[in-house]
């Protein structure tokens, strides 16, 4: 049923982009299609307004419960890790950064990635392949979950509160860099998600894929300093250099927190690496997606 709905909501989008005799071409066309996707999703969300509000409220209360847990921890401990600089408000700025990235990924891609394995299983991907538009673009963005923006707002408020409590006003350059690294983080998360979802071409039915994404990104929810020792160090290396989820939140969060801001050459190297990792992940996910499409056999329908 859900695949049907998404196709119906996507249809007018393509009509608008292709319909005219001299429709726009190139990147502008994608921007326009994207805008129509966003508008259609909003119309759909607003059709079931109470449901929308309940979704917003429940995801916000989930976040607040988590914040409650960390508040409890700081009742007992001065910081997360000895002399790491992650005291309460720096850590809350970290959490806010994670919240901004996660809610963006959730709003733009989560529903779509969830649906991709279903499109593959039912054979409905055929209808997407027929569209005169890039398949990965269409599959990744056709449905936007506006209710996830509730948590985005919570992230902004939390970040502002943390900055006020730390008594720190970031410069314009720092803000711009912060936003830039947020985008890099979103790109890394997206690549991992779409690659996992696309691999359901080979697995047929696999409900655990998005769970897998969730479990991997759990490691990115804390400052990377906590992964220490015999087991922690290899874990930290693997999730930094092989599957670069640890740089997603850590790199931008450090820019705004004075006690942990990048100071050494290796810190800045990590930031540069985050940019490279974002580009490489996007490229890798593109390749995996293309190979997956070639393996797609249009079962059923």
């Amino acid at each position: 049923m859900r695949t049907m709905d998404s196709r119906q909501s996507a249809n007018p989008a393509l009509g608008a982009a292709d319909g005219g005799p001299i429709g726009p071409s190139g990147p502008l066309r994608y921007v326009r299609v994207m805008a129509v996707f966003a508008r259609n999703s909003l119309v759909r969300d607003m059709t079931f307004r109470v449901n929308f509000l309940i979704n917003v409220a429940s995801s916000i209360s989930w976040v607040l419960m988590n914040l409650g847990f960390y508040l409890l921890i700081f009742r007992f401990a001065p910081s997360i890790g000895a002399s790491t600089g992650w005291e309460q408000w720096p850590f809350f700025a970290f959490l806010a950064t994670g919240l901004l990235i996660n809610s963006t990924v959730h709003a733009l891609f989560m529903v779509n990635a969830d649906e991709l394995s279903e499109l593959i299983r039912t054979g409905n991907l055929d209808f997407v392949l027929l569209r005169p538009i890039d398949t990965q673009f269409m599959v990744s963005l056709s449905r936007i979950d506006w209710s996830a923006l509730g948590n985005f707002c919570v992230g902004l408020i939390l970040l502002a509160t943390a900055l006020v409590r730390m008594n720190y006003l970031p410069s314009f350059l720092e803000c711009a860099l912060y936003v830039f690294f947020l985008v890099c983080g979103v790109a890394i998360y997206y690549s991992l998600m779409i690659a996992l979802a696309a691999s359901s071409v080979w697995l047929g039915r696999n409900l655990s894929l998005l769970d897998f994404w969730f479990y991997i990104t759990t490691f990115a929810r804390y400052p990377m300093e906590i992964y220490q020792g015999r087991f922690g160090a290899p874990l930290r290396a693997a999730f930094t250099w092989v599957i670069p989820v640890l740089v997603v939140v850590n790199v931008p969060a450090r820019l705004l927190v004075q006690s942990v801001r990048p100071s050494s050459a290796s810190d800045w190297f990590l930031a540069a690496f985050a940019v490279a990792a974002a580009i490489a992940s996007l490229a890798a996910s593109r390749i995996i997606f293309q190979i997956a499409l070639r393996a797609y056999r249009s079962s059923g329908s």
Partner: protein
Amino acid sequence: MSPAAAWTIIRISIAERLIYRGDFALGTLMRFLPIVTQVFLWAAVFSALDAAGRPAEVAGFSYREMIAYYLLTMVARAFSSMPGLASGIARDIRSGAVNKYLIQPVDMLHYLLLHRIAHKLVYYSVALGPFALVFLLCRGFFPGWPDPETLCVFAASLVMAFLLGFFLESALGMIGFWFLEVSSLLFVYMLFAFFFSGHMFPIDMLPAGVATVVRLLPLQYLAYFPAAVFLGKVSGPELWQSLAVEAAWIVFFAFAGRIAFRRGVRRYGGYGG
């Protein structure tokens, strides 16, 4: 219900549960991954305490006890969690699938209980491997085996956690007779259960006032209590008193569910099905 009928229900439910074995086993193992981050988070918290020259304990828990606590709540949740029970009942009421219990000589609550026992049995047979592996790897966090009496109470608290979880959630599902859409209500319950059952952290960490209220709720028996018993945090007369209170909650929810079902069926429309 005759024993033969009960056995048939159990057999069918077991077969049904084994359809997607691979997905199931993988899912069980992956559920331990968040524990890994908890281990590191708490290690960081305790190292900060150490550096600040404070005693190495949080709400009476040492680092080892804290990790052991999280592992033990996973065992407790393996007994008490009832995925899809309340929402399944509400869905059956809405879709008219309750009809089949009304025209067949099978009681709905009995059927659901047997069905759930079968699913749990399959779950334990599959999950035993991953659980044994994780506990073997983490044996260093445990202070050793508790005495036989504590062990018996621990086992009893697990079985009672299953019963409490079942009757509590089935009673919640019966609300579906009065309200068509209960998913948001169930979400609120799930949220509270996660926070106040001790699944997220030991409830001793809560500020005194809140902790007093939370100790009056039945939720703590779903995760906190079995783990606290194993770690020797509850002992003496308090132990037996808590077990008695838990038993009273089980009886209360069993009756509440039964009464709600009787009254609900009278209101029930039975469309579709």
